């Protein structure tokens, strides 16, 4: 299973970024290995969550692990059949492993799509 996770840095021990739409990078984790892609939403003027969701959908990931996600992005990911799970404290790789082990819960609450941050 291929998992996409918003992260603060493009390094193996990076933590999960609190924002999906504005995270600087995404970690793509598969079978214990990880690669990083830039999040095109990070620098977007508006619609950051949508741009990030487009990138996540295009990445071919089966699941997204994130602390939070906006309604609009959730709608895109649903259409793209990418399941959304709630992250827990720890690194991106630990979260990917937790998901593989079936320990993460699906994210069911999405914040309103107004302007992106809490």
């Amino acid at each position, binding site marked *: 299973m291929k998992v996409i996770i918003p992260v603060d840095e493009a390094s193996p021990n990076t933590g999960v970024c609190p924002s999906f739409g504005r995270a600087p990078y995404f970690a793509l984790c598969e079978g214990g290995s990880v690669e990083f892609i830039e999040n095109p*939403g990070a620098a977007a*003027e508006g619609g950051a969550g*949508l741009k990030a969701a*487009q990138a996540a959908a295009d990445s071919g990931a089966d699941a997204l692990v994130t602390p939070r996600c906006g309604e*609009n992005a959730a709608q895109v990911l649903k259409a793209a059949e990418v399941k959304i799970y709630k992250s827990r404290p720890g690194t991106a790789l630990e979260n990917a492993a937790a998901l593989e082990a079936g320990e993460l819960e699906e994210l069911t609450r999405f914040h309103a*799509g107004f302007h992106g941050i809490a």
Partner: protein
Amino acid sequence: MRIAVLSGKGGAGKTLVACGLACAAGEAVYVDCDVEEPNGRLFFRPEQVISRPVLRKMPVFDAEKCSGCRRCVERCRFNALVLVKGAPMVFGEVCHSCGLCAWVCPEGAVREEGLEVGAVESGRAGGIRVVTGELKLGEATGVPVIAAALEEAGDEGTVVVDCPPGSACPVMEAAREADYCVLVTEPTAFGLHDLRLVAELMRVLKRPCGVVVNKAGADFPELDAWLEAEGLPVLARIPYSRALAAASAEGRLAYRQDEAARRIFDGLLRRIEEAAG
């Protein structure tokens, strides 16, 4: 003649002055462009009200024609479009209705449909035609509703425009074509701070303008000093009175309640007519 009534600070008495001017004119159009909070109709209580929706264009994609080339998704500067499994999705509250996606589509797969963003009402209260723009809740910008309200109001006779507060885009839209602008303020540091901003807007729009000081009485010499330094004429001073505040609170027109208020608004309209030539 179109008179726009503005105030940098909300609650300074913009609606009081706009309603007063329309009453003083007798035969007039009062158009409420404070579309996030249109309150003038609470005072005029217009009858025979007709309402029509205000629409803005929203792209609709023809799945048959769309080749999934992504040109629209990549060029949309607002990131309102997403392509998933070969089908574009549009997000209405992010879309600015600019028409770029339809223009760049090589397949002619984008058509545009109207999406309701608010309404314009028109009704009569005696000699006054009351036009109200109202923004739908959850919509980001009132500009299209303001434009529609002004169009409905037309240009015949005396048109009094009750503008939104502040000095941002919607205010500009409401005040742009005015023959004269009335800036309503109150004698406080907040009032003066916000008046400076609206005065700057007047310079940008190159509109002739004058000031009405509402809730006058308390001493705030900084305001008078600034007005004199700027050369801005004071068209009227409306003293604070508990009776006037109570009339406004209950949705009664000051002009019809209070002899002193009537004299003030009659004088104000005369001064504006002289100044606007």
